[in-house]
């Protein structure tokens, strides 16, 4: 008999997994985390969001240039720290819900709507969805900046940082933030905060991504700064002549597609009423 889909997480295997890993010594698979430094700042007329681009699996860099600033709505973007899969899927889900909501209401989305959808979902999962978000956007109430924690609590602040590099970034903000920043000053401040995370936190690295949101437009500056180019490359290339790898057996698989495709040009027809 099929049990009804209760939603949420199923913990039925958690005791069995723990005892198996203890008995065999095989470690449970680790989720890929983003390490991360993300930050946001409000300025006169908009919001600047910033993020580093390193994704880690334990001590190894899995992606040197991943995107951590996610699209939520044309006027709302969200930086994500924590487990990559969780931040990607959470932001995509709420973005999708908001798109449907815009169609239903005929209005552009409000930041607090995205905020409420995100916090309600994260609270429902009791912190098991490990997503720490910096949500920024501009709507009819002006520019807004929020943080959302994995358990579902939120703050609204003029400057925020999240992730393992949040302390390094916040140190820069606390030293140099003031009210009434211009757009250029805000971008420079966020850039410096992210750089502080990139260089002083081992979980963050790579490039600085910046997104600037204002009433009328969004400027996506992917790779705004690339302060970490590779420093040394040997001149002699690594070359392997043909035949370096022994071929044990081979077979040729012919493509069958060419025989199957027929190309037909259709005459444009008027739609029937």
């Amino acid at each position: 008999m099929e049990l009804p889909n209760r939603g949420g997480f199923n913990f039925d295997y958690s005791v069995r997994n723990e005892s198996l890993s203890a008995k065999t010594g095989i470690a449970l698979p680790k989720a890929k985390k983003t390490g991360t430094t993300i930050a946001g700042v409000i300025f006169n007329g908009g919001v600047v969001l910033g993020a580093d681009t390193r994704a880690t699996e334990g001590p190894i860099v899995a992606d040197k240039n991943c995107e951590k600033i996610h699209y939520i709505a044309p006027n709302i973007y969200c930086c994500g720290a924590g487990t990559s899969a969780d931040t990607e899927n959470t932001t995509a889900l709420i973005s999708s819900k908001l798109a449907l909501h815009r169609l239903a209401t005929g209005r552009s989305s409000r930041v607090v709507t995205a905020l409420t959808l995100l916090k309600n979902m994260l609270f429902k999962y009791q912190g098991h969805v490990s997503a720490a978000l910096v949500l920024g956007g501009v709507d009819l109430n002006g520019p807004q900046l929020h943080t959302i924690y994995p358990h579902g609590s939120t703050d609204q602040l003029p400057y925020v940082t999240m992730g393992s590099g949040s302390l390094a970034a916040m140190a820069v903000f606390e030293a140099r933030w003031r009210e009434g920043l211009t757009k250029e000053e805000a971008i420079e401040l966020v850039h410096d905060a992210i750089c502080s995370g990139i260089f002083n936190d081992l979980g963050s690295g790579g490039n600085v991504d910046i997104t600037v949101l204002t009433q009328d437009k969004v400027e996506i500056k992917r790779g705004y700064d690339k302060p970490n180019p590779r420093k040394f490359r040997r001149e002699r290339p690594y070359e392997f002549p043909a035949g370096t790898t022994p071929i044990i057996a081979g077979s040729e698989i012919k493509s069958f597609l060419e025989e199957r495709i027929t190309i037909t040009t259709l005459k444009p027809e008027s739609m029937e009423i």
Partner: protein
Amino acid sequence: MMISPSHAPKAAGPMQARDFDMYSNNGGTTLAVAGSDFCVLGADTRMSDGGYGINTRNYTKLCKLTDKCVLATSGMQADTLALQKNLRSMLQMYEHNNGKPMSTPAIAQWLSNTLYFKRFFPYYTFNVLGGVDDAGVGCCWSYDAVGSHERCKYSSSGTGQQLIQPLLDNQVGHKNQIRAIEVDLTADEAEDLIKDALTSAGERDIYTGDYADIARVDKNGVHLSKFELKFD
């Protein structure tokens, strides 16, 4: 509703002192390549706190023991300091007693014995010893934490070991290539390869980076140089 293991009530027992971890790994990568009349060693200089923080960007993992021998150590730097102190004092005594510096193969054996001496409270150190023997032939030994050692033509250790060792196997050991042209590397080629290896390890290992020390050991002595790695 299922109760997850973390919420299950813990069994009451006698009061215990809080355990503390005696070891910590300060991270970093070392490697060595030995040739017919030289040995080149490389080691990064980043020292981390075992988590996401950096203690310092500029702490050398190389230790010049004699004019013909250099020790590269990754792991816990506190234990490395103690081990180096031990080694240096022993080397001085040997020179006074025997009228000559200790030969590299002799140091290699002595290091293994020193490490095994603390078999039941080990030095948390992953050593690579490199140098030239009395005949001027390049040599390199790799160790585990309790002294198991093996002489080899190349070796790496530390947090970047798993990234670098396969590269060395292929480029220095000519492994996994049929009909490979098995030419021994010159000292300059070995140094370039080591720099490339450390740079590549620095890209993918968060504990490797900042700067790297290169030590070239041949019959003329030990020549040290430094080059830059990424700071992120």
